[in-house]
């Protein structure tokens, strides 16, 4: 993509992006882990997290972004998120419940088990969505014109 090459020279964009990106990622984590008490959840958090990475890629170039999150990492993460989701279901089965029956996760308080289950499942969704969005961005931004 031609645009990032020109953008990299703009000092204002670079400084503002550097200031924004940590807060975007922090906000993504907030949306991720606070999703059961406020608006949001794994999907929204994943998209916001990916947006932070994509902003980095737009301003500093795709090569630098690939140093942070290589294609290999993305490939692994896309599958890891889905596997985490499925693993929660298998663990609940192993602990004597149904598939994705989170109540069995905590022997003392079923409500805590529910919260653990939702937390891990949403984390799985978040990981997969972040990686999928970055994969799509790589696919578009990495292509040459012609």
């Amino acid at each position: 993509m031609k645009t990032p090459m020109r953008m990299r020279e703009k000092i204002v964009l670079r400084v503002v992006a550097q200031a924004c990106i940590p807060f975007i990622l922090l906000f993504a984590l907030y949306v991720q882990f606070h999703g059961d008490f406020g608006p949001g959840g794994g999907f929204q958090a994943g998209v916001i997290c990916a947006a932070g990475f994509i902003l980095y890629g737009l301003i500093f170039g795709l090569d630098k972004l690939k140093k942070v999150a290589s294609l290999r990492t993305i490939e692994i993460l896309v599958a890891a998120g889905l596997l985490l989701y499925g693993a929660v279901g298998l663990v609940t089965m192993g602990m004597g419940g149904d598939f994705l029956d989170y109540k069995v996760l905590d022997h003392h308080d079923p409500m805590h088990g529910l919260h653990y289950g939702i937390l891990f499942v949403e984390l799985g969704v978040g990981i997969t969505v972040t990686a999928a969005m970055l994969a799509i961005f790589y696919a578009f931004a990495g292509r040459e014109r012609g």
Partner: protein
Amino acid sequence: MPFPIEALLFLFLLATAVVIARLRDLFAAAMLTGIFSLLSAGLFTLMDAVDVAFTEAAVGAGIATVLMLGTLALTAKHENQQPTRILPFVVVVLTGAALIYGTLDMPPYGSPGTGPEPAAGNAVIHHWVAPDYIKGAEEEFGLPNIVTAVLASYRGYDTFGETAVIFTAAVGVMLLLVRGRKREDEEQAPENSR
């Protein structure tokens, strides 16, 4: 009365849509689709659908605009002048009219659906599993956000399937568009592959 602000947002939405359809400058059109999504997100917020608004703002106004700009970098900046065709216009108008006709059967916006029977004007959705979900999210889960309780637990299987869909989409994109390029990169710079 919350009506005027919603009417204003719909007016902006309509204006944006018309401008997008008429614009030949694709860069401006791509930016306007982002604004369109942001206005939709505002409308969803007014309807108390905060989670949907969140998604619309993040995906529609954020990622989709970036992807469209990325695509624009690969193609031309301006749309070619097309001769005005009457048939597509008729099809679009008929489809729109059919959709609006369909909404006439729907319960009025904000209908609470009081009473046990789904009578006229009472939304059926309020009589089925929704009351159990709304009560259960608070009593059984202790979660203030019902959407999360429904997504992750009541409809956990469905969300698992949706995650699988996202996974499949990412794998498809990587296989079709990224994989071949990666091999070229590895030939050029083998130390980057790990």
